């Protein structure tokens, strides 16, 4: 009874100091991240500025005259690869997400599937390369073509598309579903007219982010057998639609393709400093493509949300 329990000591000054320290620490860590990013950008721009011209985009690579070299072949390769990947991965990924989120009951099997998808998203990309080599190149005999590469990138990004789409679907309030069903809509009508439109911004963000990942991948393409250096054959007969179609068929199915990350890798391995500068320029183009795709994702999201709430 004699020694009264110590009264609560607010020690306000000390706690505020600790709080301020934590605030400062968080700020510092954020700044380190931003600083490294800017350092990277500054370095790449300093190296790559020299060859960042229109000719870089339109010329073929040149081993003998690096200054005349360009990334046309690699850029076309990358665009086609990503198109194939997106055309395949988006319907499959969104479809799977709709099934898992809207139809699937909580059975053992479905839980197993969900666990597997989450794990697949973390598998190193080179493993997908080996899968693609076995399935698309060897078994389906698509050869070392853009089609094989694009399909491989598609299975690489499908888990990411599924996860992002599921999250977008889960964020749609249940009251919308209930309202639609209560008014007599079928499950399909409810999904088609209410859930999917509401989830669209989230789905699109996921799609664009995963496509951005695909465009930067080199490892699986190397396993598939992308070539480092390509001298293209015949050009496009621009006068006729038939000429374009033939060109597209050739570009998708013919063996021998390359892509931006592989071109960059090849150039950065060269000893001649001119190639290093070219690699820097190609990196800027790749970064620019990536950033504008991400900006597109942000833009779509902002536009959709702005339009809906008010």
């Amino acid at each position, binding site marked *: 009874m004699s020694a009264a329990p110590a009264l609560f000591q607010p020690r306000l000054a000390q706690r505020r100091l600790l709080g301020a320290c934590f605030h400062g620490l968080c700020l510092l860590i954020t700044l380190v991240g931003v600083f490294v990013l800017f350092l990277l950008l500054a370095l790449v721009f300093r190296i790559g500025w020299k060859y960042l011209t229109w000719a870089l985009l339109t010329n073929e690579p040149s081993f003998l005259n690096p200054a005349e070299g360009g990334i046309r072949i690699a850029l076309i390769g990358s665009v086609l690869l990503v198109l194939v990947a997106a055309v395949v991965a988006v319907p499959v990924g969104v479809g799977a997400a709709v099934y898992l989120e809207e139809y699937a009951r909580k059975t053992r099997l479905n839980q197993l599937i969900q666990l597997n998808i989450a794990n697949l998203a973390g598998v190193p990309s080179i493993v997908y390369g080996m899968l693609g080599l076995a399935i698309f190149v060897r078994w389906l005999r698509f050869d070392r073509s853009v089609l094989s590469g694009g399909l491989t990138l598609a299975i690489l990004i499908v888990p990411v598309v599924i996860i992002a789409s599921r999250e977008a679907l889960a964020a749609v309030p249940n009251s919308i579903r209930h309202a639609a069903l209560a008014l007599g809509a079928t499950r399909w009508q409810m999904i088609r007219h209410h859930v999917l439109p509401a989830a669209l911004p989230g789905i699109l963000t996921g799609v664009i982010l995963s496509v951005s990942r695909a465009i930067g991948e080199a490892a699986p393409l190397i396993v598939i057998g992308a070539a480092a250096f390509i001298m293209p*054959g015949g050009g496009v007969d621009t006068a006729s639609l038939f000429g374009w179609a033939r060109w597209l068929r050739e570009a998708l199915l013919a063996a021998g393709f390359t892509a931006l990350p592989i071109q960059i890798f090849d150039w950065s391995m060269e000893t001649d400093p001119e190639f290093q500068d070219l690699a820097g320029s190609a990196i800027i183009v790749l970064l620019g493509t990536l950033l504008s795709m991400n900006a597109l994702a942000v833009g779509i999201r902002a536009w959709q949300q702005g339009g809906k709430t008010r």
Partner: protein
Amino acid sequence: MNGLRRIAISLIVVMGSSLAAAQQPARLTGKVSIDGSSTVAPIMKATAELFRAEQPQVKVSVGISGTTGGFKKFLEADAALRTDISAASRPITAEETRMASERGIRFVELPVAYDGLAVVVNKKNDFCKSLTLAELKRIWEPESKIRNWKDVRPGFPDMPLRLYGPGTASGTFDYFTEVVVGKARASRSDYTGSEDDNVIATGVEGDIGAMGYLGYSYFALGAAKLNAVAIDPGDGKPVAPDRTTISDRTYRPLARPLFVYVNVESLKRAEVEALVTFFYRNAKKIVEHPKVNYVVLEEDVYAAATRRLADRTLGSLFADHAALQAPLRQTYVKREND
């Protein structure tokens, strides 16, 4: 300036194509697939690029999977997946030849250039002018304990020895370990390894106690900044690498010929044959191009190779590896005269 250059270039192209038209009236189409050694890749890239002026409709793809990786694609089980040409920094092995015959793949083996390996030390290193093969072996063999120059040879200073070399995926690594250590791919592993010769060169440049080995052409490009060590193959006569000693093969055993292997089935396609003969018509120009920078073979060896191509002479001349140590001229020209 730029305009003038454009005109000059287009003039050259016009002249080149009219020349081509005179030699080869047919405008070929189709595609040629090449894969293999990163060492041979510069020759393949340069050939593909120069060939374009003559046959712009032919698509040529050059992959860089390493010599062994290249042979894997050359010898694919599925004929549709096989590459037309495999670029190799060593002759085809017995195992690979066996696989070829099992799968019914017939090929022509053609030498394209010489490549030398250079053992390099820092420019400021004034004591190590030459090394015997035995000393090199003691430095580089697996489990080697040599970490100081004084352990390399009595009389060398007390200075830490740091090693640089190619990574294990490189053909240069296979080649060096085979001729120096005596067993392919057997090497100590506590050295700085990189597939990029530039990394090795930069490492040795910045470290007075360093030693490394890399392709002669890389050494020749950066010659001002590195010293090449003369190699004594065991006869007490050290020889430094240069264009002459590599081509007459007195610089032993670290100089080697480079090869391409051409599938005979592919040679039935005019564009494949045109590309290979294009190389032999322009071999000197391609091999000695500053961006390629290997050592050209002797004229008569190129002539012999051209005949082997024309006659579709099958198989490898290097089934026993002793043939690799003999001058190519002896292997190719003497054989024909016998």
